[in-house]
């Protein structure tokens, strides 16, 4: 398997604070890769640099063989990376369906065609019957799914999920996990996720990177990582083992 995304010694400072410090890793084509770590570890900063929302101070990000660091978010999205936001950001006054149509229009010029694509995705994520409601009227779990659907509508090669199951009930977590695994298996979608909910990480990720204070402290399979003493110390806590 080749690397779809490769980060080389990425750093980002905010004034004096080093948010991300020389982090490097590779996400292989077709795998599900998770980044975990305590609050303030630099996970979202890392994400924002990959998605183009922030420019790294140092280092390079190679996606699909081409550097993408410093490109604007819309260009990064057109290259094939779609993201969700930790605090969900649907277009509130637009209908659920129109939210997804916006994403689908990235690679389709006809609105009708984009609508068909949107409806197929909404069916798959159990949002079809709510498609005419304004996005602002959805519950948080539904809005989280809508965020994923809108990102998927842009037909990404790599999907960035920022704490997409946080705040969901365990049954909802399992449902979303199942759909994501299905997408990964059926269409070979590569997924890079930031996640706090270990239940989802353990169920989905092939490999995990652990961040703490902006540096990578461990990398490996989920089973290896949760046994790593440094990880237990900094993040999971003794009772998690």
């Amino acid at each position: 398997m080749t690397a779809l995304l490769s980060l080389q010694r990425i750093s980002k400072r905010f004034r004096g604070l080093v948010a991300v410090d020389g982090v490097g890793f590779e996400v292989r084509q077709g795998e599900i890769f998770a980044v975990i770590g305590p609050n303030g570890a630099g996970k979202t900063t890392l994400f924002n640099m990959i998605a183009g929302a922030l420019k790294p101070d140092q280092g390079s990000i190679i996606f699909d063989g081409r550097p993408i660091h410093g490109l604007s978010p819309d260009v990064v999205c057109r290259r094939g990376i779609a993201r969700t936001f930790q605090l969900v950001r649907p277009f509130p006054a637009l209908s659920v369906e129109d939210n997804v149509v916006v994403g689908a229009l990235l690679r389709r010029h006809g609105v009708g065609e984009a609508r068909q694509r949107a409806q197929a995705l909404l069916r798959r994520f159990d949002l079809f019957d709510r498609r005419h409601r304004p996005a602002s009227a959805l519950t948080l779990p539904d809005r989280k799914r809508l965020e994923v659907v809108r990102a998927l509508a842009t037909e990404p090669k790599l999907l960035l999920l920022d704490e997409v199951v946080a705040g969901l009930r365990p049954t909802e977590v399992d449902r979303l996990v199942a759909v994501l695994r299905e997408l990964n298996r059926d269409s070979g979608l590569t997924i890079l996720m930031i996640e706090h909910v270990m239940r989802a990480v353990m169920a989905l990720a092939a490999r995990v990177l652990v961040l703490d204070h902006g540096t990578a402290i461990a990398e490996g399979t989920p089973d290896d990582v949760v046994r790593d003493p440094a990880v237990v110390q900094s993040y999971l806590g003794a009772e998690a083992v």
Partner: protein
Amino acid sequence: MSAISLARVAGGASRRIFVLLALLLAVLLAAPWIANDYLLTVLIVILYSAFTGQAWNIMMGFAGQLSLGHALYAGLGAYVSAVLFVDFGIGPWIGFLAAVPVAAAAGAIIGFLAFRFGVAGVYFAILTIAFAEFARIGFDHIAAVDASAGLFLPVRQVAHNDLWHLRGDPTMFYYVILAATVAAFILCRLLLESRIGYFWRAIREDEEAARAAGVATFRYKMVAVMISAGLTSFAGVFYAFFYNNLFPEQVFNIGRSIEMILGPVIGGIGTLFGPILGAFVLTGLAESLNAAMAAFGLDMPGAKQVFYGVCLLVVIVALPQGVWPPLARRLGLAKDKP
């Protein structure tokens, strides 16, 4: 099953809208035979306001960019066409073709400065005011357009209406502005339901999320400003040939910009019917007030402005989305279900 019934409801709503529109258009087409000169002039003012409101709505209602300086684009349209007519004998339709790129370029300059350097929200609005003010003060000192003394179009009596040179009676002007309003409505509808309309609304709702979904926000905001500005310039051309005199102090006045946004605000920002409904409600009521006061022998300058203020206040408090959205629901014309 439910999909079929939904489709029928939606079909019913659009059929009702179509019937309503056809009725309204029939009444407006017949108006010159029924209305006296005064009423016809009021209707011209209403349609003018409906037209400019629609043009402004493309920027604010569709793409979420608040312009408080749209008088600039109308003013440029007025001056470009008037100068071409007075100094070179070129008719208003050719003048309009020249005015569109000038107004669109002005919009592009403002848009570029704002969007390139992250000037957004109220600061963007202030920038639009500033440019309209530059134009007002600038044109006041341009000798070629007779500066503050004003530019006058030659008025000649014509035996019959000359549509090509826009010389004629109010009935002709009425049909011209009616046609322009209908054309603007069709254009707005096409834009709103096209790819670009979806991107605009995404930008309006959440620009960062739009960009994350791959929308090239800079480009589509630029397109919105340029279309809106170009469309508004026609209102200026009409103004010049209808009133036959142009004073920078008047055409570029911030009051003109504010008047343009009142209709859509009252009717419903971002909706297709809002600007038109708002124009009828606002100008219709204001003129009724005028007529009523005249009947009672009252003469209060500024009463119209006070009345506009009261209307705005009532709408903002009672109907923050404007008059159209609740009215559409009441009439069963709303397409989206709650």
